[in-house]
């Protein structure tokens, strides 16, 4: 593959990745209504355990995607371009956003717990959900912004 086509290919994949990350994060957030509205986090039952297991697998898969940037089956040369200096900087900023989001959410629950009882599972579920979804959205935004004014 010529170098120019390698750069073009990496750009196509990078733009696609940014779009996919945003869609996956929004879907992940949207799916939380299943957990928060019908007692899936508080009532012990086989179906609820399956739901929680599915959420955990989903969250872990998204974290792996965020950490690796995906495209693991692509050639090394294209993957290097997909994970170059600016991409790593965007990921770093996204993870910082994730950290602060989790801290603020945890503090929020600390205050809510003064007035209304919340279970540890509910707290962990929401903190982890935001901790996964927000960095993905931030990464997607930064990646898409990087192509503006080209």
């Amino acid at each position, binding site marked *: 593959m010529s*170098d*120019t086509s*390698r*750069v*073009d290919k*990496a*750009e196509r994949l*990078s733009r696609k990745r940014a779009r996919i990350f945003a869609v996956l994060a929004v879907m992940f957030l949207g799916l939380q209504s299943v957990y928060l509205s019908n007692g899936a986090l508080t009532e012990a039952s086989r179906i609820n355990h399956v739901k929680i297991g599915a959420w955990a697998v989903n969250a872990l898969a998204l974290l792996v995607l965020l950490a690796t940037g995906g495209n693991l089956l692509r050639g090394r040369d294209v993957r*290097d*371009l*997909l994970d*170059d*200096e*600016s*991409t790593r*900087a965007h990921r770093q900023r996204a993870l910082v956003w994730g950290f602060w989001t989790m801290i603020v959410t945890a503090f929020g629950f600390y205050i809510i717990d003064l007035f209304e009882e919340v279970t540890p599972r509910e707290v962990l579920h929401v903190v982890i959900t935001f901790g996964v979804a927000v960095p993905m959205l931030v990464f997607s935004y930064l*990646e898409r*912004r*990087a*192509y*503006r*004014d*080209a």
Partner: protein
Amino acid sequence: MHERLNNRLREVRTGQGLTQADLAEQAGVSRKTINTVENGVFVPSTILALTLARVLGARVEDLFQLPE
């Protein structure tokens, strides 16, 4: 400490008739990285600044300057 970096990357690149993709290819980075450096959104590492200077046959100081 300065958080921003002035640069003449776009000017030098276009002066040599190179596209962002050409420069990205020669520097071994994505076009997105070249674009963000040119727009002042991203401050490159020392290694990337030196690489860009070498590819363009310029001194790093000719490409990047601290704001006054």
